């Protein structure tokens, strides 16, 4: 579901003397349905960069990057939007939502965007929020004022609302207590069981060991940093 071959990425900082910052070179990776692959490597080695490229957030320049059948090196913005709507889910570290929209709707939104009837979408959102132990009295409030761990769980609920065939998880358990961490690991396990291809970044080694089938060390894709 994710196929990467010889992918490279560098940033050109035009306003800092046009410095070129090579971040990835010759990256290769494959994630099949039903498996979870974890990216590892030191801070700054390019884990988030690689994940953002798969999300279509960072431009893919050279090499091959195929996600759920779409070639991201040539895809149009419209194709990437369609990919994200139906086939590619992403739980990022940050919750970015329109302020004042109630949490229940924030979580239901990916389903509404797919044209699901409102009652069904809201019911699914409620079930996920309950499972992630977000107290019901918070559902009608905007998550923008929630605690870090609550926001993260809202993000996770949103990412798991629709059964995406491909799922990207950036530190999904980072600020969670033991109970909620276990819920998230269960959700990941269930997604694998239904055949989702999952790529994750976990600093939480025990969590990684529990859900990841394979590790890919991104340090192997770090270009030699010439001055």
């Amino acid at each position, binding site marked *: 579901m994710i196929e990467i071959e010889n992918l490279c990425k560098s940033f050109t900082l*035009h306003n800092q003397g046009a410095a070129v910052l090579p971040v990835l070179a010759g990256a290769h990776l494959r994630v099949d349905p039903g498996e979870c692959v974890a990216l590892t490597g030191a801070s700054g080695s390019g884990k988030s960069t690689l994940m*953002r490229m798969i999300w279509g*957030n960072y*431009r893919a320049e050279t090499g091959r990057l195929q996600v759920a059948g779409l070639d991201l090196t040539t895809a149009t*913005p*419209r194709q990437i939007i369609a990919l994200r709507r139906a086939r590619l889910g992403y739980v990022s570290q940050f919750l970015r939502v329109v*302020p*004042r*929209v109630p949490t229940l709707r924030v979580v239901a939104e990916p389903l509404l965007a797919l044209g699901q009837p409102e009652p069904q979408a809201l019911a699914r959102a409620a079930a996920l929020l309950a499972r992630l132990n977000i107290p019901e009295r918070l559902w009608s409030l905007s998550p923008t004022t929630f605690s870090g761990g609550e926001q993260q769980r809202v993000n996770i609920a949103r990412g798991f609302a629709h059964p995406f065939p491909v799922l990207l998880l950036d530190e999904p358990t980072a600020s969670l207590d033991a109970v909620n961490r276990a819920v998230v690991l269960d959700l990941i396990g269930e997604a694998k069981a239904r055949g989702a291809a999952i790529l994750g970044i976990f600093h939480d080694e025990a969590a990684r060991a529990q859900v990841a089938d394979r590790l890919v060390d991104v340090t192997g894709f770090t270009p030699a940093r010439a001055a």
Partner: protein
Amino acid sequence: MESAQGRIWTRKKPEPEAGPLLLVEGLGKAWGARIGCADVGFDLYPGEVLGIVGESGSGKSTLLGCLAGHLPADAGRILYRGRDLRMMAEPERRHLARTEWAFVHQNPRDGLRMGVTAGANVGERLMAVGARHYGAIRATATDWLGRVEIDPARIDDRPRAFSGGMQQRLQIARNLVTGPRLVLMDEPTGGLDVSVQARLLDLLRELVREMGLAVIIVTHDLAVARLLADRLMVMKDGRVIEAGLTDQVLDDPQAAYTQLLVSSVLQV
């Protein structure tokens, strides 16, 4: 929260059409020797939001004015549902402007009738698309005032008695009430406080999703662009210097100017 569907005068979500709602090619407009905008091209489908950002004087308002037919373009084509607006007879263009398009001006006084009441400002647009029943018009106007968070008790006040932010919300209600297919907005959220701005973003997103509304929004606020726009065009000196998926343009900008624009705001 209420759904945008099933309103008295709002349009049903249209059947998907084969082509784009709007197709723009090589659009240009000079102000004497100075470039207003030049060689602008893009397309827009129902249910899409296109953001336009760029420094002051980069041609954003000129472009929007040409698209709306407020300004005559000198070059290029503007196809709306396959028909060239620059070739269209004036009465027909005006009819479209009344029924299928909306234009939200940066300055609400340019988009409101200051001499008539808030209710009449909204009701007038409904009558332009054929509404005749006074009670229904008033009910819809009341409903829309509520949606943009203006106390419906103020329906008989004139916009002059409103604050700038309220006037802007009234202008938006007046423009959206008829369920247009395409809305062009020039800095619509500039004078609004953050909370009201959030409500409007939510309202627009709902209309985009439920009604297939297409939006072109000029904004200097990159956070608004990120939350609302699917795609972004960056303009400089009248030209589009970068365009693409909104979060890609903001997080991985390619042009030197876009990098500067993005890095000069704190966090979006």
